[in-house]
């Protein structure tokens, strides 16, 4: 016992440094190092959040700068040019109107099956008409100002004694609205100079066809006020 006591007294001066060392290593290992490591990790998170916030604020500013009324008008024009559905009757009526403007006589107008071309859908309108090359030229020129997005796939003209016949397969395009949700993080879709020019051209195209219906008041003889008289 005395031996132990003697040894303790001999090395008692080392007790405090050893305790300090153990405590220091524990504090450094269990507190300081983990806190510093997570500090760096959190700093990255804060930086990422700040970047995200900057992007979102830019988007908010961009969205605030957009003119809702103008956008509605633009969209209306674009939906006339490239509708969400085939709108076959409207297109047929419009093309017939364009043909009569170009002095072509419609012989036959039928539409083929629906096609999928990339993102867009289309169907073929097979147009057969009577007319001469200059009138066909006028029709093609008028098509440049047509309110629908259409392309002439081929041009055939035949003048065989019994009259000049023109055959034009015309692709009429439409595009359904995709159901995909817009990611709020993605920047606002902005129009570039080319887009703006095309949009102006579309505005200058002829106004969309409006089919007016007239209602007339028809007077029908109602007979006697009292039918038992």
């Amino acid at each position: 016992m005395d031996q132990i006591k003697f040894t303790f007294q001999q090395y008692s001066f080392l007790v405090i440094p050893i305790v300090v060392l153990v405590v220091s290593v524990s504090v450094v290992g269990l507190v300081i190092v983990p806190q510093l490591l997570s500090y760096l990790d959190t700093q990255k998170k804060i930086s990422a959040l700040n970047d995200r916030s900057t992007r979102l604020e830019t988007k908010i500013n961009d969205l605030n700068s957009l003119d809702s009324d103008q956008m509605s008008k633009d969209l209306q024009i674009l939906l006339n040019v490239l509708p969400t559905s085939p709108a076959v009757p409207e297109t047929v009526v419009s093309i017939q109107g364009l043909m009569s403007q170009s002095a072509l006589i419609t012989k036959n107008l039928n539409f083929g099956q629906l096609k999928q071309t990339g993102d867009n859908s289309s169907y073929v309108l097979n147009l057969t008409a009577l007319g001469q090359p200059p009138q066909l030229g006028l029709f093609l020129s008028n098509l440049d100002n047509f309110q629908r997005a259409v392309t002439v796939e081929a041009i055939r003209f035949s003048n065989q004694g019994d009259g000049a016949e023109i055959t034009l397969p015309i692709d009429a395009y439409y595009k359904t609205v995709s159901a995909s949700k817009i990611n709020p993080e993605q920047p606002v879709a902005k129009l570039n100079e080319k887009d703006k020019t095309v949009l102006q051209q579309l505005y200058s195209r002829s106004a969309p066809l409006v089919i007016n219906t007239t209602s007339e008041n028809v007077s029908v003889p109602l007979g006697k006020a009292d039918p038992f008289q």
Partner: protein
Amino acid sequence: MNKLAVNLLPTDLLEEKKQNLKFDLLRKVSFGVLVFVVILGGATVALRLTQQSALNSANDRVSNDQNQVLAMSDKDSQAWLIKDRLTSIEGILGGDQKRKQIYSLIMNLLPPGMQVTDLSLDKSNNLIISLNTTSLADMDALFHDLADQSKNQNLISLVDFDGLSMGKDNVYRFTLKIKTN
């Protein structure tokens, strides 16, 4: 005035005093290290707490911004829809421009006395045209214009002359196969 200093303490005591001074220094250094480590630990904890507050603040800001963006999602969708439709329309509209240009060019180059009996302009913009004329000069003028780059707008790469005939009515009938650039 000179001072006389005489150390009368025994040597053992002096040694013990020296030893105690060393132990004292060791204890002081140990306490110093302990205090330093505790302060450092406290500082890192305080830093983390401040950082946590900055993190919460950044999260709140992002969440607030997201709500603002979501509140304008209709506008966002409209802008996206406009861009998407315009891109599609731009892709569609130029599709037949060359075909129309070729047709218009050929009609402009045809001399007034020349009649088209058949014309076929296909999807690859290759043109086959059958023509009637009573004038060889008109034919000559047409060939010249078709071959002249200043008049053919550099649209024509090859003209294949095919099947020339002349009927009893003195009308020349011929077919041209035109390849475009």
